[in-house]
């Protein structure tokens, strides 16, 4: 079952440049993870997160693939994520494992224009 690691957080305006530099480094690091099927890093333009809000979505084939991807010592992601955690507004960083409530095929069909 396709599994997603989803994180969201907010960054204070005066730390944005520093944060986005760390985010760029994190993106470069993540390209080395073959298990990640797709990745989206989004900044909220308008919405409920305190400004400036970010959303990070990693897509894996399965929970097992996510687990194998994150075991020490092969993974140094914690170090790459440390600046993000440090720069996030206190109490705003949330992370979880997500799945699609529909099966994968139905989700793809739902995403396609019918006409």
């Amino acid at each position, binding site marked *: *079952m396709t599994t997603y*690691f989803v*994180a969201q957080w907010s960054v204070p305006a005066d730390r944005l440049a520093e944060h986005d530099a760390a985010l760029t480094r994190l993106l470069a690091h993540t390209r080395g993870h073959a298990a990640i099927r797709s990745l989206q890093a989004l900044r909220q333009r308008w919405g409920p997160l305190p400004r400036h809000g970010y959303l990070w979505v*990693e897509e894996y084939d*399965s*929970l*097992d693939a*996510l*687990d194998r*991807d*994150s*075991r*020490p*010592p092969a993974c140094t*992601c*914690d170090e*790459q*994520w*440390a600046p*993000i*955690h440090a720069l996030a507004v206190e109490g705003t*960083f949330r*992370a*979880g*494992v997500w799945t699609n409530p529909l099966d994968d095929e139905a989700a793809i069909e739902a995403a396609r224009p019918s006409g």
Partner: protein
Amino acid sequence: MVDADLSIGACRLWVLQDGWLTDDGGSVFGRVPKAVWSSLVSSRDNQIELPVLGYLIESGQELILVDSGCGTKEELDPQFKRPDGDLLVSLARAGFDPEQVTIVLNTHLHTDHAGGNTRRHNGSILPTFPQATYVIQEREWASARSPHPLHADLYHAPDFEPLQASGNLRLLNGDSQLTDAVGCRLYPGHTPGHQIVVISSAGQRGAIVGDLATLRWQLADPLWTCPYDLLPAINVDSKRKVLEWLDAGGSPMVAFGHDQPLFWPIATDSGHRT
């Protein structure tokens, strides 16, 4: 013994292993003289090897994991080794994915029993079994969050704290029935909120006693306390009550956190209990 598949009535049970723990025999047997314990278990330089075990029970629609091993969040302490893989590998050999587990029951929250409750990903700690309800005694929860100094290094907050935020935590205040066949019973002593699992189905019975007794001989003779028991006198009382249940007949199965499952009563040649 590893990944053994047993059944108790309509319940199927798998023994899962998360490697081995090496410890000083004196640290396990306490006041029992070495001349006695060394006749029961093999040792090298006073060190004995104990399996780190979890159990999987299929009962009706529920798939219940009893204890989750050390987990993979951190590098293993040198005291532990995993020549055949970790508990999730053992779970896969039994034919199951973490997503299929519906209940995780921790006998107690020491890190060799609860470390696998959570996983680390990108610096975040997440439940390893995302569909599961984690069942823990309220007293154990309180003890783990504010541990006695004797047990402070045996608890590791990332093993259990994130469960509350994720909303899949169920705290119990005493005995409870999880399915028609499977229940948990509060038997304190090893820790203040230690619980065991009892299984009763189609006339057959079994118990998973966690660290109520580290090894079979410590259950056979309740006075053989373990130095890791925080409340040894209370644990003696708890073991006596469990022995009454085991002695009620029918040769029930008894499974431990660090010893092979067996059918009661045990055949001992130590003379301490028959």
